[in-house]
């Protein structure tokens, strides 16, 4: 399994967690399954909303974007694409900072922990680490044999397969 496949898989798990918390927030799920911590205290606090939307809904959107990028990056068309790598790093990096802020609020302001939020924060840190590894790989291949700094470099792709050659190249 490649780095981007792992990112897609972890993002899918993130989507499911964020979907669960969003459905709770809008009243579709009645009780949160929360064996550790105080999920209801955290999710009914004033910090469970950001710019008019539930924080969980922002998480859902972010995980969907990460999943879409990672899935696109596993296809041959965008394999090794630096743009995809940079977007993954930027989105997951921002999300790590945001998750860190939320964890700070849980620990020092709300004084309650939501286990699902902690799992999501850990997932995001792992995704960020993998995104950095993916970027390093993509840049390494780009230096080895690419004139492309965006889509379609010519080195081996992130899936390990040789890249298709540009038909215009002799």
């Amino acid at each position, binding site marked *: 399994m490649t780095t981007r496949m792992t990112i897609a898989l972890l993002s*899918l798990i993130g989507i*499911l967690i964020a979907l669960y918390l969003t*459905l709770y927030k809008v009243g*579709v799920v*009645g009780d949160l399954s929360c064996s550790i911590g*105080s999920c209801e205290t955290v999710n009914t606090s004033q910090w469970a909303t950001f710019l008019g939307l539930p924080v969980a809904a922002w998480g859902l959107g972010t995980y969907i974007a990460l999943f879409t990028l990672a899935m696109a990056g*596993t*296809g041959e068309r965008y394999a090794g694409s630096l743009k995809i790598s940079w977007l993954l790093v930027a989105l997951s990096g921002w999300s790590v900072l945001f998750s860190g802020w939320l964890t700070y609020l849980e620990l020092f302001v709300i004084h309650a922990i939501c286990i699902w939020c902690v799992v999501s924060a850990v997932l995001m840190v792992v995704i960020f680490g993998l995104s950095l590894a993916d970027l390093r790989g993509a840049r390494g291949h780009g230096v080895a044999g690419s004139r492309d700094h965006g889509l379609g470099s010519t080195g081996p792709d992130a899936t390990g397969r040789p890249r298709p050659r540009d038909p215009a190249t002799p």
Partner: protein
Amino acid sequence: MVKPPPKSRGPNKLFLVILGIIAVVGVALIAMQAGGGPTPKIVAELPPGDAGKAQPYVYGRPDAPVIVAEFADFECPACAQFATLTEPDVRKRLADAGQVSFRFYDFPLEQHRNSVLASLSAACAADQNKFWEMHDRIFAGQDAWASKPGESDGSANRRASRLFSEYAKQIGLNESAWSTCVEEQRHLERIQANRQLGIQRQVRSTPTFVIGNQMVPGAISYDALKRLVDEALARRDTTARSAATQ
């Protein structure tokens, strides 16, 4: 002759199967918990009068057949959501119709720095028979006065204080009597007693409702609340019938 590039292939099938399985299992687990709304817990009914020092604010007939009690925090967003979206219906269609007695108990959460001040402001408005007007104004303006992360306690309190004074003026309170009452924290004991009752009743989050003998956490919908009121009415009728036949 140069061969054309192979057609773009997606990720391998095994990987897609794994993703599919995770998605299906995850959605199934979520679906198992969805749809039912909050699960009520059977508890002892609240007494029709005051419970010790705890004194709720009552809307509707005090002797209505069903008591709907809400334990709420003025700074909690879910409480504001219930107060602005659902409560008007509860008052008009259930309390004004004489079916329920709606009771508000303060349950200020420790992490909300302006909650006690909001409760004091509403309690002092109650002295002038304008609790519900102040209650509605405070919840409607929650975004403006709620404390913000990083804001000092003093700054958050001053901003809320200024806004509550404006609300007092808007709803036509005697401002000087109201502000003296708030400054003296005249009703702090009542607020603490209301909260204490919630703690005894194992209220863990806000809002929490006690409808008849069922306790439900969360900002429930009007339909869910009406269903529980109907159940309480039916139970009451059954009990009355069986008492009459004995």
